[in-house]
């Protein structure tokens, strides 16, 4: 994947300055970054597995893993070793090649996604997060393609293939049902995800993740608040994005894909040994990546005040701290929210989130137009809000009259 991006970046003089001229040092730095990100993500995933188990135990008044290492922190490692030595079963009725391929398909998008996430650098006082490694200026992110946000959407839309093909290739019915659910759910929430991400693109005026962080690093509303996407978009797209992102991850309360009571284990019922571990890891890795994307789009990424020492280090610290908030949130969701019913899931996606995301996008767009034409922001905003409410009322009425019509006909 990296070759075409490098090729395309050579031409336009935007993006990471490291790639303006490619030589051995630059290639070395890129490889170093790849290794660091790979290692960091794996370690973070191990941490996340432990963290989730431990936190849920706390919330449920249990002890949780406590034997392997201090506080049971090596539990994931122990599990991994155990999985590795289990028997690897490939069912007779499975589509063998696809069955083997599927776990990797689930795994790869999670890695690729992280390539465009800025995870450090000093963004204070007009700095744009540049760091110098081996005498070369570069950003603390693997790649900064001019279509960063679209790349994120593209990769998250590819994530569905892992679950889908795993279920289909298993050649048994519960996995198939799980994968059919997965594809319907992920395609449905893709639209809301994209529309709410588009709201951030609209207010920051860029698709590049790095420029997005840079533009969020400045002073925000009234000079006090940070200039974060969550404030610029007035909050609603953030909520939509978090809900849709949770659904994309198939995490509770949207984990219908692997609803144990209905589908045994969902799409990975037939998987065992290291292949199962891959799915397991992919799920947690996706959680971390999605949190990083929340942070990049809405919470200013690694930007934040630096106190002492090198500025880039504070960027990394802020980034990790912000990501941690969302990791905690995901665990919290899991511990407290009951699973949704399938029709509730679809209703929420199609009848609430997508119209709301679209309507809010239009409101933000009308505010942009008001700024460009130097109209009064408040008047335009008020009119847009009224139109939004009116549209919502119309939608509600038509949904209701449709439901009433059906109910009436059922009674006949």
């Amino acid at each position, binding site marked *: 994947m990296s*070759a*075409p*991006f*490098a*090729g*395309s970046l*050579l*031409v*336009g*003089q935007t993006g990471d300055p490291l790639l303006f001229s490619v030589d051995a040092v630059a290639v070395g730095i890129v490889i170093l970054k790849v290794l660091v990100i790979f290692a960091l993500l794996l370690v973070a995933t191990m941490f996340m597995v432990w963290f989730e188990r431990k936190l849920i135990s706390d919330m449920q008044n249990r002890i949780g893993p406590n034997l392997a290492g201090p506080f049971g922190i090596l539990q994931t490692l122990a599990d991994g070793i155990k999985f590795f030595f289990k028997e690897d079963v490939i069912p007779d009725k499975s*589509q063998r090649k*696809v069955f083997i391929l599927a776990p990797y398909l689930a795994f790869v998008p999670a890695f690729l996604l992280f390539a465009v996430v800025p995870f450090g650098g000093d963004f204070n006082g007009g700095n744009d997060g540049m760091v110098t490694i081996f005498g070369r200026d570069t950003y603390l992110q693997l790649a900064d*393609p*001019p*279509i960063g946000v*679209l*790349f994120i*959407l*593209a990769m998250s*839309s*590819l994530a*569905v*293939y892992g679950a*889908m*093909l795993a*279920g*289909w290739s298993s050649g048994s019915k519960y996995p*198939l049902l799980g*994968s*059919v659910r997965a*594809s*319907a759910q*992920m*395609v449905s929430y*893709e639209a809301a995800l*994209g529309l709410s991400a588009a709201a951030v693109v609209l207010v920051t005026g860029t*698709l590049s993740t790095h420029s997005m962080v840079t533009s969020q690093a400045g002073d925000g509303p009234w000079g006090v608040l940070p200039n974060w996407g969550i404030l610029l978009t007035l909050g609603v797209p953030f909520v939509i994005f978090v809900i849709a992102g949770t659904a994309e991850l198939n995490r509770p309360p949207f984990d219908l894909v692997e609803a144990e009571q209905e589908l045994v284990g969902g799409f990975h019922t037939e998987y065992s040994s290291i292949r199962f571990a891959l799915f397991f890891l992919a799920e947690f890795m996706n959680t971390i990546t999605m949190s990083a994307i929340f942070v990049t789009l809405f919470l200013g990424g690694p930007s934040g005040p630096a106190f002492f020492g090198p500025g880039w280090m504070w960027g990394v610290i802020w980034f990790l701290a912000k990501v941690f908030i969302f990791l905690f949130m995901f665990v919290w969701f899991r511990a407290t929210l009951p699973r949704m019913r399938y*029709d509730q899931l679809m209703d929420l996606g199609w009848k609430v989130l997508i119209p709301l995301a679209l309507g809010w996008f239009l409101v933000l767009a009308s505010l942009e137009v008001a700024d460009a034409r130097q109209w009064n922001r408040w008047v335009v905003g008020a009119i847009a809000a009224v139109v939004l409410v009116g549209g919502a009322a119309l939608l509600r009425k038509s949904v209701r009259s449709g439901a009433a019509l*059906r*109910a009436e*006909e*059922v009674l*006949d």
Partner: protein
Amino acid sequence: METTAVEYVVFALCAVIVLAGAFGVIWFRNPVQAALSLVATLFGVAVLFLNMNAQFLAAVQVIVYTGAIVVLILFVIMLLGVDVEEDLEEEPLVGQRVIALVIAAGVAGLVVAGVTLGGADLVSGARSVTGSIVDDVSNIEQIGRLLFTEYVFALEITAVLLTIAVIAAVVMSRRPSEVEPLPAENASMEPPEPMEPEAEEVFD
């Protein structure tokens, strides 16, 4: 813009992937495998777009085609349970394979003849890039500008088209709950008798 060695290598790789995928679509007897080959083709095309510096198109290609359309194709295949290998031994129309072969060979011959006789500027694609990418303006801006000026009417018509297609799809998937025995031949000419509105099935 000069073509670099990297671009040649990427092009060659993608060309192989695209063609192999396209071949796979018609070669595999299992619809799911055919759909997966289609993914390979579409992905290869996306990378080719990147190679030509059209990042926006590449991303949209992946999001729309691989991420949505093929997923829906697979969804329908799995939902209907038609993911079984087809029996290709039987010919519904006698001689259709021979005719298909002849026509395919003819079209392929015409295309090859067109390309080989077309001269250098055709093969290099020099003509087709007349309205192409300006390097220092982002893809999205250029596409947006074209869409909302020169092609704004086409864009709006597309909106109507999509709306009406959704209505058509909804009508197609709605069905009356009482499925009557199918009427006899030429029944389409029967004067439809006035009826009460039928109850519909509730899917939920």
